Structure formats: C-alpha cells, structure tokens
C-alpha cells in the first residue's frame, strides 16, 4: 500500500469502508467501498449519511470508476471520494476532474510529480464536476 494523498481539509475518515451490500443492509455505516461493477446510483438515497466513498480501481485500465465518481458528485455528494488501487501518476488529473479528492494508490506516488501534473494544463475543454471553467465559457464570457 502506498501513501495516501488527500485534497481535503477535514479529518480523514477512520472507519473502514464496508461493501455496498453490507452498506445497503445496515443503517449505521458512514463509509462504503464501490467495486467497478457496482452501480453508484444505488448510493444516491443515502448520500447525506456518507462521509467516505471509496471507489476501487483493481486495474488502471478499467475506467468505470470515473463515471461512478461523476455520478456521485453530480448528485451533490460532498464527502470524501477516494480512488483506491491501481492509481498511477497519469490518472490523477482525470480523476480529480471527475470529483475524486482522495487517493489510496497501491504504490506511493512522487508528490512533486503529482503537483506538476495537476498544474500542467492551464485550460480544459469540458465542464465536469470540478470548478474549472471550460474554455467555451472563458471564450464566451
């Protein structure tokens, strides 16, 4: 397990995340882990009691978690959204843009390189769930 990276000011969530099935079956858990084949929308009725959602990336090539993250943010989830597993330097930027604000990579990432990657692109083309304005908005006022 590599070092965690967080882009949040609140205290990290201490409770371990439970599986989606366990979460839906019990009422008191506040942290859940989503596997790639699980439907993020199953969590939408419960977002107000969740403080951590961990999205699993068993392989970096499996991009389902990007959609899961956006769906959660689009529904107004503001708690910690963590990408866990095969998370590499070159995935951090698209993950941030899809709403992840916490990372639990298998292998520790070079923080300086992460920083450089996050500031490399001054502009983005799409509106997503981050606060970056798409260039079409900058162009059109």
């Amino acid at each position, binding site marked *: 397990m590599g070092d965690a990276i967080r882009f949040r000011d609140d205290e990290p969530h201490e409770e371990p995340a439970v599986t989606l099935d366990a979460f839906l079956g019990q009422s008191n858990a506040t942290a859940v882990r989503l596997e790639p084949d699980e439907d993020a929308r199953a969590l939408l009725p419960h977002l107000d009691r969740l403080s951590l959602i961990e999205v699993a990336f068993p392989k970096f090539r499996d991009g389902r978690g990007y959609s899961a993250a956006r769906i959660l943010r689009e529904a107004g989830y503001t708690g910690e959204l963590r990408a866990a597993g095969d998370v*590499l330097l070159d995935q951090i930027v698209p993950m941030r843009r899809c709403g992840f604000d916490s990372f639990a990579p298998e292998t520790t990432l070079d923080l300086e390189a992460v920083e450089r990657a996050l500031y490399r692109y001054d502009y983005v083309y799409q509106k997503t769930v981050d606060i970056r304005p798409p260039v079409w908005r900058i162009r059109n006022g």
Partner: protein
Amino acid sequence: MYKYDEYDQSIVEARVEEFREQAERRLSGELSEDQFKPLRLMNGLYLQLHAYMLRIAIPYGTLSSRQMRMLAHIARKYDRDYGHFTTRQNLQYNWIKLEDAADILAELATVEMHAIQTSGNCIRNISSDQFAGAAADEVTDPRPWAELLRQWSTFHPEFTYLPRKFKIAVIASEEDRAAVKLHDIGLQIRRNEAGEVGFRVFVGGGMGRTPMIAPLIRDFLPKEDFLSYMEACLRVYNRYGRRDNMYKARIKILIHELGADEYRRQVEEEFLHVKTLGLDPPAGEFERIAAFFAPPAYETGLPDEIDLSDPDFASWVEQNVHAHKQPGHAIVTISLKPVGGIPGDASSAQMDLMADLAEQYSFDELRVTHAQNIVLPHVAKRDLHTIWKKLDAAGLATPNLDLVSDIIACPGLDYCSLANARSIPVAQKIAQRFASLDRQRDLGEVKLKISGCINACGHHHAGHIGILGVDRKGEENYQLSFGGSGAEDTSIAKIIGPGFSEDGVVDAVEKALETYRELRTEGERFLDTYRRVGLAPFKEAIYG
C-alpha cells in the same frame, strides 16, 4: 479552416511537454515498457515491426498547405522521406525514434497539429466527409460539429479509459462518403420538417472481427442537445461495455447484447439527467467555430466548360473530378494509388507539391480521404488542366478513383506487428493485373479493400470485394469476400469460400470481375450484379 486560439495552443503545447517527460522517464529507465506503453499509445506512438510508428491526427481530414508542408518536413528530417495516409484520415510515420518523438510533436504544435488520442481506448480522431464544405449535396458543412466534438473529446476525463477505442464520424449529405454506419457513433446532419438542423444518430457499428452496421438510435437530435447526448451515449458505454474480453469490448457488442431499444432507453434516461448539468456550450461557441468554416471568397462568373480535347486529361477529369456547389468550381481527388505503388504512401516531395497546389489553386486547403487519397476541395475549373499537368509530372495523376486499382490497403505484415499477412503486395499485384485503364474503366466502380489481419484496418468488410490476409500454418493465405459497402447502402461482405495464395487471390479477383462483365446489365456495377444474381455464378467461376 479552424484556427487555434491561445487556449487550444496552450493545451497542445502542454501535451508536448507532458509527453516529453514521459518519454524521458522511459529512456532513463524510470518507467518500464509495461508502464510506458499505455502512455505512448495515448499519443499515437506504437512499437511496430521495424521501429516506432507515430500516428498524427488530421482532424476530420482537413489540412492547410502549411500543415502539409510540416508533414513533409517531418518525413524528411525524422523519418525516411515519406508518410502513409490512413483509413482514418490520419498520417503515420513508420521509422520514428523514441528520442525524437517529443521534438516532432513540438514541431507539429507550431502548425496546430498533434498526435493526441490517435490510439488508446479513448475517443479517436473525428472523421468526416472529405468533400465537406464543397459537396453539392450537403445540408451544411459538418466540420464545425466535428471540431466541437474534437474539443469535447480531447482529454475528456471520464472517457479516457473506455472499454475499447471509440470512433465517431460526422457527415451532412445523403451520400455517405465516410462510412458512418460502420462507426461507434455515426452522425448524419439533416433538417427536419421545420427546417431546423439536427442529427441522425447511429450507434454501434464497426468492422474488426465482428462487423456490425449501426442501428439508428435517434432520428432527430436537436443541435442544442448535441454534446449532452454524446455524453449520455458514452457514459452508458463506459459503465456497461464489456471489459472481460477485449474482443467483445467495442460498443457494437454492448448494443448487440442489450438490443438497440434497451440501449436507446438507457441513453435517453441518462440524457435527461445529463441535460440538467449545463454541459452544452452556448450557441455563440458553435458560431465562433462555424465562422472559421465560412465558404472561401470564390471568384464569380467563371465558366463551367472545360476543354477536354486532350484525352488523358479528359479521362482524369471524368474519373477524379467531382461537382462543386459553387459554379465554375470543382473538387479534385489526387490518387495516391499509382499502379504498382503503395496505397496511401506519399513522399515528402509529393506532399510539398500537393501543398503548393492547395495554396495556389484551392484556397489553401487539402483533405485526406478514408480511401487514402488527397482532395483539393475548391478548384476553379479553368485551373484544372494546369493542376493535372503538375500532378502528372509528379506521378500523382493516376485517373483511377473508385476503380479496381484504387485499393484501400492496411500496412499489413510489411510494417505492422499485429498483421498476419502482407496487404501491400496483393494490392500491387491486383493493380498490375488490371493496369490497363480501359479495362478498369470498363469494369467501372469496384471498391476493393485489403486487411492484413482480422482488425480490419483495410476495411475489407466494406469492400465490394474484400480481401483478408490470414496466417495458415505459417503461410500467408487470403480470404475473399464480396458484397460489402461503406456507402449509404451499407452492407457487410460475405466470405465466398476457401482462401487463396497471394497469386491465387489475384486470379480469383480477375475471374470474379470477368464473370461480372458477362452477367451485368446496363449500368450495373459489380456490387449491383452480385446483389442481383448472388454468389453462385461467381463461386462457380472461381472454384468450379
């Protein structure tokens, strides 16, 4: 043509520096090949049989003369003095050094070009009608929409690790010159009864090992909903496309398994949600882009008559020149299929010449076609003879467009590490067999397409005659199929029987075309005759 502003330029330049660092990390050993491979593939850099190959994006196949000259310059400086135009309207260099790749990208960035997303499981270069903006039959120029898609898909964070690659084509005519129904998404711009512009949306077509024709998912998508609907189509695919088997990971398999109706239902449901997010740019952004594609300042009052007294010129005009929407003008297609040549290859000198001609005679514009030819889209008819003379002197005036020697061929086993058999030598032998232009013209339109493996880069499924190279116990073997079409009458070719050796397949093609000559009725193409009479007489002639 579209021109980058500071934002577009900044994004492309940042990509060059990002890739430079990635390549340096690989050269220094910080990255293993396994780690580097997905990174280089996101930027079109492959390791092929003989060297690295770099695929350059040519968005919707449109180039300025300055860009074409840059392609020539790179061929001279970093490669072996030529490039290969591909069936996705892109250009590939076959002999690239990893240590030069970032410098090449930096040079490309100076002319608003890049290699972004020319490979990888992401949204690839958007393709379009090579006659866009010039075709007499178009509703509107499809390229502003293609450019909007280019920007939307560039580094789209949600769709960077799709189940598999994703190809989108946009046209705006009834005649389909871009094979839209054989794309992951095919868009046909049309007007509804109220005269409003919108899209017919086909999703789930493709070639490869499981060819499928895309079903219609939306008959009329209002332009205001364009990008939201694309998001919805992609999100459903990203979430539910198969990831257990790379051969079943394309969207066509998802739609085949779900059924078009269920896929449509899911997309429409997702769309209702996505539409609330404000992802569609304002109309002003489309207008900004569309202004770059305004018609050039055509000269008016030009004559439509051409002096065709030179028979060689006349045959080139008949075969390679198409009607333009502007009186006194025409569309010229430059064949990159000289008899015995390599389909789609052009030397740096030929690229420079084509750039010069575009600058002088075609309002600075060129197009790349999916059939691996080059188009000068806006030529005054009075200049046709001069252009033809210059092309002829450079070996670029072969009057064979859409004839049997205008063959689409993938690089095949001469270059490609995925190939099972060579494609180019088969193309050369067929072109030589039918070298007589009179014979080719008598045979009429024959779309012959050759792939060196099941991935079908040579579009063999869409060939009136398709050839697929396979590996049979270590020997190259060629399967022949008939009846495909990538045009508006889209169909998928069917294998006719046991395969052939290289020479055998050339003989079989000749027998098929001779059989067609005997059976055809007035005005019938090979494809029409085949569709009318069926396979039996051809099979009898070939195997009988």
